[in-house]
């Protein structure tokens, strides 16, 4: 057992792609919205706040319904104000520290706020409230209270948003005791993880990679949760373990399929959570494959890629037949130019190339 791992509770994820349940291909965007809707219906203590999650707040449309002028960043909250009203869908002024702090105060007193922080970068504006209040209250008050808040924000590059709108620093949040951080990688997992986050009694950050938001995947009709702190295998293989998270998970899967054509049988682990971290899933995998490549879009130093490498180098050392490789963004801010931006983000070629180097093929 490690410091930071959740107890090995049985993970119930009976639903999903490949499972024989009713469902349909849905976009990540739509699935996210639907999950919010489900959770609002499920629990009257759940409400959502953020900038322009409705927009034009307080006004009504021609039918006298609350105006949904903006539909929320990335349409996450589209239509919700019309069904749930302005008490549960709360537009905020632009003041991330103030309204995240208010969400913490609300959570401390018996509600379950869900906070849209829009772009992941804006976490920095509210960082003290996240670190000093959301994450620490339970511990420093000796377990007297809980802080059931869910935050979500859009991370990552690939859309030309440049240095101040492309952050991916989930490792910074995973570093913070008291927070949980999940990194869904498709429509199926965002549904299960967002629902789990909202029902969780600890503060949870849900990272939505911008490049995932328009992707489509199979999503079961019925509501379900995915255990926070459990990863999944995207592909079984025996030659090498490739670990992805958020956007890099589909990248790793595609790279593995490419590699399969060249006779390399890669196992692909999708972390899904970075705190708690499912150490078992990648340790077990390395025990089988004896090689590991970790793929993280974030900058390298003290990253989640580093963390996975550190865990493996300590706990699966005897299984390792080759150096541990990290494939990450460079130690730079995100550039604007499309070509530079593409060069920043690990792609299938980089992953496949690293694997081939590692295997000396």
């Amino acid at each position, binding site marked *: 057992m490690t410091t930071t791992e959740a107890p090995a509770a049985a993970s119930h994820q009976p639903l999903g792609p490949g499972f024989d349940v009713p469902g349909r291909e849905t976009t990540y965007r739509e699935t996210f919205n639907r999950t919010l809707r489900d959770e609002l219906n499920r629990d009257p203590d759940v409400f959502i706040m953020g900038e322009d999650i409705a927009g034009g707040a307080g006004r009504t449309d021609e039918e006298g319904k609350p105006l949904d002028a903006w539909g929320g960043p990335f349409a996450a909250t589209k239509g919700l104000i019309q069904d749930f009203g302005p008490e549960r869908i709360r537009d905020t002024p632009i003041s991330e520290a103030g309204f995240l702090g208010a969400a913490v*105060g609300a959570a401390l007193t018996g509600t379950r706020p869900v906070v849209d922080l829009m772009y992941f970068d804006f976490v920095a504006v509210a960082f003290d409230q996240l670190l000093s209040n959301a994450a620490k209250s339970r511990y420093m008050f000796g377990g007297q209270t809980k802080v059931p808040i869910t935050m979500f924000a859009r991370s990552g590059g690939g859309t030309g948003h440049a240095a101040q709108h492309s952050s991916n620093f989930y490792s910074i949040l995973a570093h913070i005791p008291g927070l949980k951080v999940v990194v869904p990688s498709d429509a199926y997992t965002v549904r299960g993880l967002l629902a789990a986050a909202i029902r969780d009694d600890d503060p949870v950050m849900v990272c939505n990679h911008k490049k995932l938001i328009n992707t489509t995947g199979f999503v079961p009709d019925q509501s379900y949760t995915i255990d926070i702190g459990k990863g999944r295998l995207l592909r079984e293989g025996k030659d090498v373990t490739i670990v992805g998270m958020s956007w890099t998970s589909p990248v790793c899967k595609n790279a593995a399929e490419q590699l399969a054509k060249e006779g390399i049988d890669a196992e692909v682990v999708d972390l899904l959570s970075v705190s708690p971290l499912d150490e078992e899933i990648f340790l077990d995998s390395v025990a089988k494959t004896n090689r590991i490549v970790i793929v993280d879009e974030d900058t390298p130093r003290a990253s989640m890629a580093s963390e996975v490498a550190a865990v493996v180098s300590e706990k699966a050392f005897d299984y390792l037949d080759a150096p541990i490789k990290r494939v990450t963004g460079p130690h730079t801010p995100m550039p604007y130019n499309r070509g530079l931006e593409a060069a920043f983000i690990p792609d299938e070629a980089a992953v496949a190339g690293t694997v081939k180097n590692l295997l000396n093929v």
Partner: protein
Amino acid sequence: MDIPPDKLAWMYTTMYRIRRFEETMLEQTFKGKSMGVTHSSDGQEAGPTGICAHLTDKDWISSTHRGHGHCIAKGLDAKRMMAEIFGKATGQCKGKGGSMHIADFTKGMLGANAIVGAGIPLAVGAALTAKYKGYDSVGVAFFGDGANGQGVLHESMNLASVWKLPVVFACENNHYAEATPVEYAVAVGDIADRAQSYSMPGVTVDGMDAFAVYDAAGEAIARARRGEGPSLIELKTYRYHGHFHADEPHKYRSKEEEDSWHARDAIRNFETRVAEQALMSQDRLTAIRKEIDQEMLDAVEFAENSPMPHLDELYSDVYVSYSNPLQGLR
């Protein structure tokens, strides 16, 4: 406002309890019994007392590094507070929080907060809960003059006004933030004047006069309970001791200045007033003092004789959903 007799006795008890708690706490700190820095609020008793006189356990307050007075006024137990400062398992936070993090959620006390300004939005959030759930509870944010520099205060006042939340912003202007005078750091005449930037009422009150505080707070809290939104109250007051236990305030303020505030001492003020207006008898006042003096002896004894937390406590209370394993990464 007329103050009912019970409430008057409560106010005297509370102010005297704060005073004696702080004196005792400082004494114990100097004896090495505190495990960290302590910030005494003595001199400032009238503010928390006059405000919390209007609150019940169903109302919420947020507080600061100088939080003992807020705790006591909100009904926390001196024993468990003292034990917390002593770092004991019986402390309000099992000895894991210390002087700067005393909280009691059963009393609506959301915690002292050691980041200047950071507690303020918590009270706004509590007020949001009240509004959302349809409670008639209010939130009160206590903060110092120094916290007026912080942006999160501005954000909190704006947000509370936009959402018309039942919250009172209670600024304890004790004229110094560490050694920095309020006149240097806060670029406005009276702090209460900033209320107009948020379309809320703002009032400056003599923070050494529990009656005046009671009146102003009564109005602000009633307004909040009526659903009319937030208010700002500035309490002009003074801390009798240094910024923290080891601070020597004469390096930045004069004996004369201190004397002028002591001359307006909140407790003495109160005693004079109740005597003059025959609101409480000398016997009653004496009895209260005696009781509290004993309470403080008991608190120290309790703290002294309490056990240290078990070392396993290092790893608990990080998450609700799972316990942290014992040994870190060693």
